[in-house]
């Protein structure tokens, strides 16, 4: 039997040195006894194996094992060092042992690791500082804390990062951590009597704690699971819990059973003044502002429900050229403006190439709300169907009536249908000048998002050229006479 005496409960380096020495000697786990001396010696002198330097023993372990072992060593279980040595032993025969989380030893180590991690997390949560006297202009705080596992040294750097500009000490029964705004140091464990007994702000914290509690939602089991009772004696708010819990039932019953009170008269009057959105199918809008407002409140088809807003057209109220797209896309729906997304960029480039100043054209869409479906968390464009196009023509017609453009460019099949009043295959009508009933002329061309989708480079270049030519044609027509 080999006996290893480690210098302290958290002497992981001592464990590593001893394990590194024992392992090449083929000391089986069952023949090694791990103890903590608390004194200075790291290995029992009589049987001390010869320590070797790293690599000399001819074995290496993965970073993952060292990380896991470092955490498990902080566990309060007396069996932890034995377990770690057993794992180290077994890694020889099964180098990928740690990946078998179902193995009893690995499962136990992983459990212990997660308990240590949880103890560290709870330390970050439940340390409660109390202010102590400090030199003029400086602040100093002291906390008493009892961690579930020996995580104080490992967790102290968290508090340094968070409170680097205030001096603090965290006293625990195992070890105490001190930060003086320059360096982190540790001293042996302390006694609760060494810690300050109160802080003026604790009363405010207790007030907050009691007020943020909703008695109608009593669920003490969840509270105890997340804030185990072992921590309560050092939490200034915890002494309120029994009374809060006891009174919760009565408080809830009272809220449920008390009859509603009469609202004040002025409130009733004010409520009557509130008028909701005007009906969408009232009189036809007589200004573009009315179109914008109406589109946003429109309920003529169900597309409004999943969209952010209705997107009306924009441009000069007397534009000679009107350009009609299909519908707003993802970006247009968020921004509330037509053609600002990816297709909008293609559109802008084509306009520039055709010499058409966008600010002189009235740019709008056949359908004013974004039709889409969800694919995971992404919104995927869906082509509007006939009933939606028909419902929304009411608005496009209003825009045409108010702007009275000489030429209307319809981008894509949806726009063509809305402008012409009937379905028209783009490949047949594209590039022609069509006469409309309201004396305007129409030019039908590709939709810019079609140009984004053409896979074949040659076909794409041809379509882009046609798109620019069609815009030029429309602009020339709009400028005549």
């Amino acid at each position, binding site marked *: 039997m080999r006996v290893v005496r480690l210098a302290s409960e958290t002497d992981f380096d001592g464990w590593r040195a001893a394990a590194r020495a024992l392992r090449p000697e083929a000391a089986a786990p069952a023949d090694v006894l791990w103890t903590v001396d608390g004194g200075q010696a790291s290995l029992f002198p009589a049987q001390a194996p010869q320590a070797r330097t790293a690599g000399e023993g001819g074995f290496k372990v993965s970073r993952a094992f060292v990380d896991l072992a470092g955490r498990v060593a902080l566990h309060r279980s007396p069996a932890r060092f034995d377990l770690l040595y057993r794992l180290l032993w077994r890694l020889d025969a099964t180098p990928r042992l740690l990946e078998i989380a179902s193995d009893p030893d690995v499962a136990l180590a992983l459990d212990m690791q997660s308990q240590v991690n949880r103890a560290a997390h709870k330390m970050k949560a439940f*340390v409660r500082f109390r202010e102590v006297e400090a030199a003029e202009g400086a602040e100093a705080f002291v906390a008493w804390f009892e961690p579930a596992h020996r995580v104080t040294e490992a967790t102290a750097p968290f508090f340094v990062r968070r409170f680097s500009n205030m001096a603090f000490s965290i006293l625990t029964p195992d070890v105490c951590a001190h930060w003086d705004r320059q360096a982190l140091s540790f001293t042996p464990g302390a006694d609760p009597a060494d810690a300050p007994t109160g802080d003026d702000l604790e009363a*405010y914290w207790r007030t907050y704690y009691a007020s943020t509690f*909703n008695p109608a939602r009593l669920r003490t089991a*969840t509270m105890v699971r997340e804030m185990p009772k072992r921590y309560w004696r050092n939490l200034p708010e915890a002494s309120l819990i029994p009374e809060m819990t006891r009174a919760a039932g009565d408080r809830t019953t009272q809220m449920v059973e008390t009859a509603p009170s009469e609202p004040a008269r002025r409130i009733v009057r004010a409520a009557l003044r509130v008028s*909701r959105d005007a009906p969408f199918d009232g009189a036809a809008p007589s200004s573009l502002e009315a179109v914008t407002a109406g589109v946003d409140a429109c309920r003529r088809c169900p597309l409004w429900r999943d*969209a952010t*807003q209705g997107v009306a057209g924009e441009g000069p109220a007397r534009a000679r050229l009107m350009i009609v797209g299909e519908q707003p896309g993802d970006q247009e729906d*968020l921004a509330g403006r037509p053609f600002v997304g990816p297709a909008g960029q293609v559109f802008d480039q084509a306009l520039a190439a055709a010499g058409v100043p966008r600010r002189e054209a009235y740019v709008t869409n056949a359908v004013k709300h974004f039709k889409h479906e969800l694919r995971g968390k992404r919104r995927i464009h869906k082509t509007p169907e006939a009933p939606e196009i028909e419902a929304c023509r009411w608005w496009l017609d209003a825009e045409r009536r108010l702007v009275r453009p000489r030429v209307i460019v319809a981008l894509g099949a949806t726009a063509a249908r809305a402008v012409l009043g009937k379905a028209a295959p783009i490949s047949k009508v594209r590039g022609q000048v069509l006469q409309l009933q309201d004396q305007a002329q129409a030019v039908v061309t590709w939709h810019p998002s079609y140009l984004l989708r053409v896979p074949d480079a040659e076909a794409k270049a041809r379509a882009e050229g046609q798109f620019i030519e069609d815009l030029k044609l429309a602009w020339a027509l709009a400028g005549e006479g």
Partner: protein
Amino acid sequence: MAVLDLKQKLSILADAAKYDASCASSGAGKRDSQGGKGVGSTEGMGICHAYTPDGRCVSLLKILLTNYCIYDCAYCVNRVSSNTPRARFKVQEVVDLTLGLYKRNYIEGLFLSSGIIRNSDYTMEAMVAVARSLRADHDFRGYIHLKLIPEASVELTNQAALYADRVSINVELPRDESLAAFAPEKDAGVIRKAMGAVRLGIEAGKEPARKTRPPKYAPAGQSTQMIIGADGARDGEILARSSTLYGNYGLRRVYYSAFSPIPDVAKSLPAQRPPLMREHRLYQADWLMRFYGFETAEIIAPGEDLDLAIDPKLAWALRHREDFPVDVNIASRERLLRVPGLGTRSVDRMLAARKLTRLSLADVKRLARNLEKLKPFVTASDWSPGALTDRVDLRDRFAPPPEQLSLF
């Protein structure tokens, strides 16, 4: 009226803020107080500094700047027509309280909301002033969550998002029609537009093309809250609305808040005990949509409610028994994620372990927490559920007797 001291104000304004479910302090990325002159850090993971007997986490100082409000939302304790006691913090008071509580390690930061006083911009400006003072005057690097007022100007919204880690706007109710009925001053369209503007702001802040990195725009994203049980919306409708919100505005979270009794209720919305189990099931379903690859329609149809007695994943499995049992030694990750009782972590460990060994039922037990729940749905090297998968009384084995439900 008697002058309120700070403790009384804190009591009133914390009480008034507690119906907002969100208390998350996660997702802000890493930063700390080193090299600065103040306090504060965020390291990605949120920290709950306490739990109240309602089982809720206390992470942030969650208060209203004031609970005076010109709006009359029937579900809200602070509506203008309520006779609740009123209070108003000064900007400096909130700043001092936040820093004082933070230095004692009671909180991760501040969650500031407010009733609407005078008008939206006036109120939003005061909230921004608190955040600005914390960040600029005190170099505070802890977490700040600001509730945005949808009607406030874009400039103020943008300022708020530059100081805050997270911003949120509550959609309040699952149906636009209910919002019109119960919150006459609020407008669902305005709320959606404000959320859309925040998404555009967040995305613009992430543009890599810019040389000088702009201050981060709401690095922990945006969230929202829906009150459950105040209107007639069914669970299917609620979850469909959630998916839309996640998709439209890139939300980090949709919070479901069981409609809770409040002191001094409105006539139009009588008090009732909060549907806590329903809220819990909605969160589980939400989780399935976000992390387990479930589409809303798979979980529930629009006109239906979730089964209160069993969780939605188990309910799905019971409806799709033809897909089970699943062999833990060969099934894909997607299929394993659909097994009741298996979480993402268990599944990932299972996939790693089975490359090196054949998994027995005892192995599965060490990898998953709840063996009884998953036994009917898996096969392992030494286990086959046989007829168990198709037993008609399978649901009854998991559903607690009815009277237990009310205890939850």
